[in-house]
């Protein structure tokens, strides 16, 4: 449930308007942007239409097609407003009014294509990554600026400025509303998928704050990934991303203790994993594999699927997982992938091999690098070195649940005996 609906929980019709807002506002905004070529005009008109709805619907009940009603109402409001504002000097507004009047009924138009165009605008490489994320959540996810600010733990004014600046740049620099041409599509799609992944990740491993998981962001990312696979059913990487998110999500409730501490994959109660999400994720992974056009998200999804397959931690097919990490390293090498590969390597060839790999990585600023090193050193009985590494990890970890976890591991390590090899 969105914070907004918690605030306005009086009466079921109000909640229904909220629910429809979450479901339909992205579509409506995208459609209005196509009609008026202006984000602010579109956003304001859609907000206004929902205001009218929240006043009228509790008395009249829901119209047969609430989404269509919102689009039509918003379009009429926008035309009224532009007409009022259109003067001899303001030829743009006049042109927009004329243009939309000659358009067929917007509801009949390819509404889903509108959202696809808009997501490529929001994730345009000319916008900085935090702006891409914020715009996507706001325009396609229908989140309020305050909600996005809360999710990313920045002041609302900061988030508002970020959005204003991004919208101004789209307009001034004439960033197009267009599905990129084929030659650019792979790169541009990757940018969109990365934004959705970032949204999920921020929800799943919140970089700061008390809670480990901010589930509203996870839900939103899955919703966006789903909508993208609906619109681009032939893009295996989009399917791969959705599968990866679903499989990761399936472990959410097993990932923390009741007091919010982190539980590692190997120690999780696998009966808590959500079978329905796992089944859906695995079906998607198989569908990807059949297409035989592998990409980084598909490989990560395949790795997640292998974990989901294992009845116990010991029963995990680490050899296959290591092979997939090798493939991922060949395709999209990064120090973080190398770090994850080292974890798999430890299971196949032992902690000493993994440690040797880790020591070649330049990830000094990343808490999980030090946490993984600490874990390997601990396994090798190098208690003092492990303790120092836990210290390094703690010095860099900002999330409270992760910090608590690291402190526990460090304490546990301190109870073991130093081994000399």
């Amino acid at each position, binding site marked *: 449930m969105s914070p907004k609906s918690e605030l306005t929980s009086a009466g079921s019709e109000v909640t229904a308007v909220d629910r429809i807002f979450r479901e339909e506002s992205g579509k409506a905004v995208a459609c209005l942007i196509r009609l008026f070529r202006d984000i602010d005009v579109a956003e304001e008109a859609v907000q206004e239409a929902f205001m009218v709805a929240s006043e009228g619907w509790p008395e009249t009940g829901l119209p047969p097609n609430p989404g269509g009603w919102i689009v039509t109402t918003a379009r009429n409001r926008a035309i009224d407003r532009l007409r009022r504002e259109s003067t001899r000097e303001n030829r743009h507004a006049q042109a927009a009014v004329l243009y939309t009047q000659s358009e067929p009924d917007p509801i009949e138009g390819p509404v889903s294509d509108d959202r696809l165009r808009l997501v490529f605008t929001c994730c*345009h490489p*000319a916008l900085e990554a935090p702006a891409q994320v914020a715009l996507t959540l706001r325009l396609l996810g229908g989140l309020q600026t305050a909600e996005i600010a809360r999710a990313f733990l920045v002041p609302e004014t900061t988030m508002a400025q970020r959005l204003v600046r991004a919208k101004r740049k789209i307009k*001034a*620099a*004439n*960033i*197009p509303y*267009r599905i*990129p041409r084929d030659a*650019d599509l792979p790169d541009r799609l990757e940018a969109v998928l990365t934004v959705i992944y970032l949204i999920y990740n921020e929800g799943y491993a919140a970089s700061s704050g008390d809670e480990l998981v901010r589930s509203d962001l996870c839900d939103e990312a899955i919703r966006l990934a789903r909508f993208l696979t609906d619109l681009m059913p032939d893009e295996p990487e989009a399917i791969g991303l959705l599968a990866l998110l679903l499989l990761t999500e399936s472990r959410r409730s097993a990932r923390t203790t009741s007091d919010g501490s982190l539980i590692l994959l190997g120690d999780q109660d696998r009966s808590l994993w959500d079978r329905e999400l796992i089944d859906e994720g695995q079906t998607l992974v198989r569908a990807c594999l059949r297409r035989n056009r592998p990409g980084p998200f598909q490989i990560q999804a395949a790795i997640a699927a292998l974990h989901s397959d294992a009845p116990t931690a010991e029963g995990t097919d680490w050899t296959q997982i290591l092979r997939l990490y090798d493939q991922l390293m060949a395709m999209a090498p990064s120090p973080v992938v190398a770090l994850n590969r080292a974890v798999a390597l430890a299971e196949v060839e032992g902690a000493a091999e993994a440690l040797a790999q880790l020591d070649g990585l330049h990830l000094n600023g990343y808490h999980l690098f030090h946490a993984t090193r600490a874990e390997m050193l601990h396994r090798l009985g190098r208690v003092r070195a492990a303790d120092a590494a836990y210290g390094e990890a703690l010095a860099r970890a900002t999330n409270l649940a992760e910090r608590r976890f690291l402190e526990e591991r460090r304490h546990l390590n301190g109870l073991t005996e130093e081994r000399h090899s």
Partner: protein
Amino acid sequence: MTQYLLSVFNTEGQEEPSPEVIQEMYADVDAVNAELMAAGAWVFGGGLHPADTATVVSARSGETMITDGPYAETKEQIGGFWIIEAADLDAALDWARKATVACRGPVEVRPFQDEPEV
């Protein structure tokens, strides 16, 4: 259509490229210019003398002042620029890709405030 300023940045004090490289650069830039003109995207363009040939004129309470040297106190200075006309930012970025390769320097793409009057 939007007009864009494509500025090429040079880092002052860097080693001069060899005369051969400079000749190559001129030829590449000429080719981009010809392409811009053929596509109807060309508005204006040119290379500039180094920033130490610049003079700044400023006004304070009606009095104008003249100072020697570039205005921005930075090593990164504009070495040349184009003004182009393009359908949207993607089209402008396509030109900028060609421009940066030809000039061997980063190219900043910035939209003009007003659409050109037709």
